[in-house]
């Protein structure tokens, strides 16, 4: 059979599905969330700062949402600041602490989201000093190594709760404890964790914590930052003084109410839903890694319940994604070809893997809509797509060599 006829056969063999497996990018809004937010678009549209009835009603709804979020976080309501996104919360936490202190040393890790990494790198230009911690081959940050890197000038440590690309869950409590022993503030970006992992800030021991709506079946355009009482932050947005002066701008009332509802639902359903997701996740990992020269990225167990990230050698991620797209499967890749910067995934390379491994990496992130049948289908067609693309490819890389971190040809 020729490659062309095999492609035709594959594309015609199935009715186009709708299998969304990019929940780490964003989630659909839960209908219950939409229902909760709906009245605040047109009916209860008042400005929460106003003194008349419709303003007061919006204000009460806002405070109610704040109280509900603080209950889940295990903090007091005035420690919750609503923002416009997870990125904004990260920026407020990092720039806020740094600029309030004026100078000092900041520690972060090599696998952070760009919302943290680029913010920290920007502060380097403003005269702050920065240490970027490496991770081990699973993506784990070592608390002992963090301890060694903390200096007397260190003002802030920002380390993510769970990684968005490879799903590794960091030992947040231990990392926070290390910081507190040395009197350093600890921020965590918990955007990927908010939907599935415990987020009680007291139990985690964090001083600042970022969440957002669009990863937890809530609305886009809303995030939140937990700021432990007593921590001084310099705002990054100035104006009407909303959110205790930390985030000026009329509050996104429907978004915030939707966010509170989404967080409640996610946390309530997590114990049961996680069991279901982990079963599906492990089935998908098992099925995909049966493909020759395909291996798992990230930690096998300390891993988000919905994250599958594999590298498939000799084929390029974008090609796989576009074939899967044609069959109605939506996933993402760490290949350079799909990144805006044209750089391959900084997370995959931080695991000690060469560029070749990043170019062939595929991430499937499962969600509420994912079924057992979906997983079977994805395994079946990914096998076929890889078989076709390998016949088009001139490569034959050595998997052991790649997994031990040696690329056959180095990036120029």
């Amino acid at each position, binding site marked *: 059979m020729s*490659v062309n006829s095999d*492609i035709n056969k594959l594309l015609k063999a199935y009715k186009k599905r709708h299998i969304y497996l990019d929940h780490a990018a964003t989630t*659909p809004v839960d209908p219950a969330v939409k229902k909760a937010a709906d009245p605040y678009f047109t009916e209860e549209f008042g400005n929460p700062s106003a003194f008349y009835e419709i303003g007061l009603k919006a204000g009460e709804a806002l405070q109610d949402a704040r109280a509900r979020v603080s209950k889940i976080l295990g903090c007091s309501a005035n420690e919750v600041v609503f923002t416009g996104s997870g990125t904004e919360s990260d920026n407020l936490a990092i720039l806020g602490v740094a600029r309030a202190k004026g100078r000092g040393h900041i520690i972060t890790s090599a696998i952070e989201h760009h919302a943290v990494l680029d913010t920290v790198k920007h502060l380097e230009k403003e005269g702050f000093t920065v240490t970027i911690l490496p991770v081990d081959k699973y993506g784990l940050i070592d608390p002992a190594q963090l301890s060694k890197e903390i200096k007397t000038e260190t003002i802030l440590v920002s380390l993510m709760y769970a990684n968005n690309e490879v799903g590794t869950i960091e030992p947040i409590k231990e990392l926070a404890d290390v910081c507190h022993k040395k009197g350093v503030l600890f921020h965590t970006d918990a955007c990927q964790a908010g939907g599935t992992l415990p987020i009680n800030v007291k139990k985690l021991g964090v001083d600042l914590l970022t969440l957002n709506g669009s990863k937890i079946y809530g609305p886009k355009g809303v995030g939140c930052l937990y700021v432990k009482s007593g921590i001084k932050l310099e705002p990054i947005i100035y104006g009407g003084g909303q959110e205790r002066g930390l985030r000026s701008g009329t509050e996104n009332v429907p978004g915030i109410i939707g966010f509170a509802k989404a967080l409640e639902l996610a946390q309530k359903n997590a114990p049961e839903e996680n069991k279901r997701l982990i079963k599906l996740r492990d089935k998908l990992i098992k099925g995909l890694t049966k493909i020759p020269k395909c291996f798992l990225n990230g930690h096998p167990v300390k891993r988000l319940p919905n994250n599958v990230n594999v590298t498939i050698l000799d084929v390029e991620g974008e090609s796989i994604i576009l074939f899967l797209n*044609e069959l109605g499967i939506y996933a993402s890749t760490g290949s350079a070809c799909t990144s805006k910067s044209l750089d391959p995934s900084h997370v995959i390379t931080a695991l000690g893997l060469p560029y*070749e491994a990043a170019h062939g990496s595929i991430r499937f992130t499962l969600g509420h809509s994912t079924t057992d049948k979906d997983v079977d289908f994805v395994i079946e067609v990914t096998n076929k797509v890889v078989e076709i693309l390998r*016949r088009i490819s*001139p*490569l034959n890389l050595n998997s052991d060599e790649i997994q031990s971190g040696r690329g056959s040809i180095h990036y120029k």
Partner: protein
Amino acid sequence: MPIKIVKNDADVSANNNRWVYSSSVKSHFFHPQNLVEDIKKFDESKYDGIGVVGSPACGDMMKLWVKIDKKNDRIRDLKWQTFGCASAIASTSMLSVMVTEKGGMKIENALKLKPQDILARLGGLPPRKIHCSVLGDKALRKAINDYFRKSEQYKRIVTEGFVVIDPDTKITDKDIEEAVLEGADTIEKLQRKLKVGINDKKVKAKAEALMKKFMEKYYA
């Protein structure tokens, strides 16, 4: 509890029409032309020249084989294999069509083929994907040079006109062109990639001017 997103057929078929690239790219990606169908059965010795460019680390690599119509000095056949994204696969496929159609391209014309010629036939690519289409013409020139070498037509071998820009690091205009195609759009990014003009302001200015020239050429 699971949220089911119900999509009707109309929605699905509407989605079918949304694709990130041109229909020509899509067509070549899903129907690659002149591909080596089975490398195990492929008889390399029937071909007159081989060209390989790119690397797996860069995310694009291409190998192509040419057969020459020696009497008419034309390309009679071209077969290829590509590792890369849709743009890379489609542009190799398009290149193979361009040089073999209408009785085969004259070698002198094939040597002059530019990435822009392939791009035009593909109906364009998004700006940041243009670098994925620049390997084909280079692989073709390498394969033709390989043919010249094997057939002892040494005088015809084309050594591309490199101009050394930085005498310290031997960076050429070609290197700068490739860096621009790989995304360098500021002198800082260019220097990060190439270490050009680090100790010499004049060289740095020259490199920056060249970078702007290539940016104009590819992205204007």
